[in-house]
């Protein structure tokens, strides 16, 4: 089920066994790299990516080409760090790319490295990716053998080494600066920004940090050009995006769609609707991190601007659908628990704020809630807002505020049912 003739990213769904380098090259694989190395200056690669409008797929949606252009020309070495930490609840797209279409990921890395003048790239995967990374390593080895990685790639004087590294299982290590610390062997906690990684990144050197999916978009962009790419998506949200669909749908899974596709299409056409014909009560568009959308937003076009205008964020596009059986206080408390559990503990507002929010949720659950507990939750959220060291702390406010905004009566009921716990 797709709006696309063929996939741009999930090409393994159209071409069996494309994870093998011979199949990949037989279908135009590494042509983009060849084209870049033979016909383009590094700066031109950056320019094409800029012109394509490609935005970061890791969450923040920052234009990839613009990010690359921040890398200073006169400082060496430059590093590429590929964010494969993929720890947002409900997100499983990078894994499918790594498992199904790894050479497109590697080709994207090589193009990025050529564009910014890097000679080493690190792929940082979440700790649980031991299996997928075994396959990825095979793909890397193949690419070395075939001369697409390593010394003097395709006979040019461009060289690139690619390393993989697995984290130890902390959500915070998906945050780019915490990831860099972890990669350096330090405690996985975020660092101050500025300086941004483009200036002071891995081992203090200029570093591009990009998501797996972001880089996977690059080979088709370089191969077919920016105009071709812009035919997908909207004016400001160009291209296709992998939507991770889970929760109360008949067919959960990854779906690659042009940005701007309506939410209804994703849930009903791709996902087959809600099981048992029940109604959609709420949708989480970006895992646990972005505000909940109420179920009446099904006609929302899924691009960065529209989702933001609807009061939420597209983020990594991990759609978790909740039907009318879901208790929203419970759902919010699960997410708050997640953030408390994953808070790195560096800054006091996040470390303790999430703790106290969860404490209030426990009272709501256990039937000990006090009349002013809902306002207490909101006031903790207001105080934390904008005062956490990194976005993890800020993310934790989304489920609290949005569930109260849209479903306050469920909270009030809990308060009224004093003495009656779950």
């Amino acid at each position, binding site marked *: 089920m797709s709006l696309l003739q063929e996939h741009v990213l999930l090409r393994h769904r159209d071409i069996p066994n494309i994870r093998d380098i011979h199949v990949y090259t037989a279908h135009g694989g590494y042509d983009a790299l060849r084209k870049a190395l033979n016909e383009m200056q590094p700066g031109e690669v950056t320019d094409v990516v800029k012109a394509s409008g490609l935005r970061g797929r890791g969450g923040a949606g920052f234009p990839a080409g613009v990010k690359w252009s921040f890398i200073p020309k006169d400082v060496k070495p430059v590093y590429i760090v590929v964010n494969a930490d993929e720890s947002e609840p409900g997100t499983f797209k990078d894994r499918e790319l790594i498992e199904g279409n790894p050479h497109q990921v590697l080709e994207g890395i090589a193009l990025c490295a050529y564009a910014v003048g890097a000679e080493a790239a690190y792929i940082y995967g979440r700790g649980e990716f031991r299996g997928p990374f075994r396959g990825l390593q095979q793909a890397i080895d193949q690419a070395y053998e075939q001369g697409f990685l390593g010394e003097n790639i395709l006979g040019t004087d461009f060289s690139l080494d690619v390393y993989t590294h697995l984290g130890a299982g902390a959500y915070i290590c998906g945050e780019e600066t915490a990831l860099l610390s972890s990669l350096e062997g330090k405690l996985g906690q975020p660092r*101050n920004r500025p300086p941004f990684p483009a200036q002071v990144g891995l081992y203090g050197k200029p570093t591009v940090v990009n998501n797996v999916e972001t880089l996977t978009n690059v080979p088709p962009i370089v191969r077919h050009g920016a105009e071709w790419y812009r035919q997908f998506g909207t004016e400001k949200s160009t291209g296709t995006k992998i939507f991770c669909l889970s929760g109360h749908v008949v067919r959960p899974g990854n779906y690659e769609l042009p940005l701007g596709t309506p939410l209804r299409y994703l849930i009903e056409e791709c996902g087959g609707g809600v099981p048992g014909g029940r109604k959609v009560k709420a949708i989480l568009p970006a895992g646990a991190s972005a505000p909940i959308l109420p179920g009446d937003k099904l006609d929302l076009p899924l691009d960065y601007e529209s989702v933001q205008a609807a009061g939420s964020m597209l983020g990594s596009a991990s759609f978790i659908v909740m039907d009318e059986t879901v208790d929203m206080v419970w759902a919010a408390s699960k997410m708050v628990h997640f953030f408390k*559990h*994953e808070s790195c*503990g560096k800054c*006091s507002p996040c*470390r303790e704020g*999430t703790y*106290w929010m969860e404490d209030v949720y426990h009272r709501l659950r256990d039937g000990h809630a006090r009349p002013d507990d809902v306002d207490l939750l909101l006031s903790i959220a207001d105080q934390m807002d904008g005062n*956490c060291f990194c976005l993890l702390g800020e993310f934790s406010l989304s489920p609290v505020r949005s569930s109260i905004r849209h479903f306050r009566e469920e909270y009030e009921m809990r308060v009224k049912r004093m003495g009656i716990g779950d």
Partner: protein
Amino acid sequence: MVSLTIDDVKIEVPEGTTVLQAARMSGVEIPTLCDYPHLTPYGGCRLCVVEVEGARLLQPSCTLPVSKGMVVHTNTARVREARKFVLTLLFSERNHFCMYCQVSGGDCELQNAAYEQDMTHWPFQPNWDPYLVDASHQHLVLDHNRCILCRRCVRACGELVGNFTLGVKDRGPESIIIADLDVPWGESTCVSCGTCVQVCPTGAIIDRRSAYLGHEADVERTRSVCIGCSVGCGVELITRDNRLLRIDGDWDAPVNEGILCQIGRFLALDDERERIVTPLVRRNGTLKAATWEDALDYVAGRLKPLAGKKGDGIAALASTRLPVESLYLFKQLFADKLNSEMVTSIEEGVTTALSGKVAQELGRPFEGSLERLKSADCVVAIGVDLAENHQVAGFFVKRALPNGTKLVVIDPYDNQLHELAHYALQPQAGTDYELLLGLMSAIVKSGLSRDEPTNLSELAGYDPQVVSQVTGISADTIRAVARLIASSQRPVFVYGKGVTRASSPEVLSALIELARLVGALTPDQSAIIGTKGQANSLAAYMYGLDKPFEVDGHQAVYLALGDDEPSRRLIKRLKGAPFIAVQASYLSPATEMADVVLPVEMWAEQDGYYLNLAGKLQKAHRALVPPQEVRSNVGVLKALAARLGVELEADWRKSLKKRAPINPVVE
């Protein structure tokens, strides 16, 4: 320069200044907890937030760099509310029942911050969970119940000391400060430098000895200089009612910038020696209390007839822990006035005589300042274990390692820095010279030398291949180390007793030649650092108190021991001396042998100057009043001189620079 406005005051500050620093420069106080001036800004606690016009969110001032035209408000209602929230979280996080805490009532930065925000209570339930108290450490206690997770201790241990003992376990609210991989602190790699206790803002890390003995408001602080070794760290002596409670590193001291080692911080406090509080004179075989008159007369009476006698006259020894003033009077009295030929220090010049000889031959100082260590990109330590003595210099090296500084340790014997070194070279004992020449020969061959070798013909015989036979170190290693040293931009050489103990200066001369070859010794700068023995070893050298001590038919020995402890070797050699006078603070095997004991001030009781290993002259101040009958070292020497009818000159400065200096003396 960047101009900005903080609380309606316009100021200009250098680029790169943080808003917090800028505020402090303009006299505006912003409360902080995780920030510490000597540590890298961290931005964790969020107490220091300020409002910046044009920014939607509050900004942490400790990490925010100033920018042009910035308008900052440090004390708006919004800021105050945010601060109260942070404090509320921190107070309710763990047990902060202040009345049971030793820092409560003035010394707790958390409590002080809460008072400043007019907090009377906090609206959240306190967390009733009990946390561990780690009391396994010899000197320190870590009470997790009081910890606010600011990580100042963790950062100090890593950034300032380079020890990386402290860290954090787990995440979020479960975060716990741990030692190593969560072992009891007392069993960890902690080197007891105590830097962590000095930076902890709450009562979480306390020092066993001074805890509960007095708040900042009750105590006095006196600037002094540690006399544990020749680094000469600046310290602050914390005293109350004439009792030494604690020793802090002096953050303003240029030599150590606040850090100390275990010796400097704790050793003086653990001193259990018995104090001498009155002069003693031996009568009928036992030492009896005497008046100063009697004791001094007795000594003078015995010394006077021996004046000017060679061989069977007076032998005089001084401790290298005595202040410069005392050493100068001592030297004048015994060497210049009484004309004794055996006037030296109890160290007998082991750490200085050889270097002095080399300096004399070179005709100029060849050592540089300790500062060089802080910017070194390659350190070569030879014949010195900087984890054992001169530890603060060792900390400078250790903390630079994560930034890429390379370390080469050359020592035939066990050396605790071996395990941190990029190259730990253990040549066969006695082959340092060959190794150094091998390194030079490899450098010259590789074309990396920055200066002409003076001993080119000699080097020919020291090809790495040949040298490896003698030293037991492979030729490849020798070449690799040579390349490492020669290709670094700011190499520094540190040498110690392993080099100076030798009978001839050839190893030291080779080291100097090596340093010159790689540009570490130029006509106006040197990156060679020699560790000396004690606090005033270098001053003792400058006054010529550096020769080997031999008692051979001397009729009297005068031992100016001060608060030093005599070595067993020294005691053995004193046996059989017909008359021994000891000027000392504590009872010791030396005073037991003495015929007269003259009680003097100890370190913390006297004003005085010390010349550190790099020639830096520093003043220590009196922090304690000595017992009534105890006199100053200077006073005793003067009184003795008066009785012997000689006049001593007091201006020690001039003659301090007379001898060929190993270091340029810096005042």
